[in-house]
């Protein structure tokens, strides 16, 4: 259950961040409805944010694994 809550928390944070960045960029002046253009910008922005999140996860996990391996090998590496 703790794991499930952590996953929920994670998803909620991702949604918040997406809305923060993409609302800022794609809907600078909120009008009486979301226009087609705003919607398509928002949609791309959202996908791009998730692509970024994935790219960064991969790179970050890879990097900390490399640093841990270097540390265990007795060196100090990674700097």
């Amino acid at each position, binding site marked *: 259950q703790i794991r499930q809550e952590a996953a929920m928390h994670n998803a909620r944070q991702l*949604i*918040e961040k*997406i*809305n*923060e960045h*993409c*609302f*800022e960029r794609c*809907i*600078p*002046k*909120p*009008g*009486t*409805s*979301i226009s087609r253009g705003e*919607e398509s910008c*928002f*949609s791309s922005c*959202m*996908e791009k944010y998730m692509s970024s999140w994935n790219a960064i996860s991969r790179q970050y996990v890879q990097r900390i694994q490399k640093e841990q391996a270097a540390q265990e090998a007795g060196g100090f590496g990674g700097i």
Partner: protein
Amino acid sequence: QELQQFIKNETQKSNIQQSIHSLTDMCFRKCITAKPSSGKLDKYEEPCMQNCVDRFMDANNLILKQLEAMRTA
């Protein structure tokens, strides 16, 4: 069980207040661009605030719809 309900309600209330805080933070930035000279919202600021909330919620729904579409794809 009553306690659980109490905690659930309080958590929900606190989530709502959290959302109101961050919406106010964001919409104040978007809608109040002039140096403040009065405490009231003027006739441009008031509807801007309302649109800001409604468009933010629309955007939130877009995210949820798209996430749902991705999960079932």
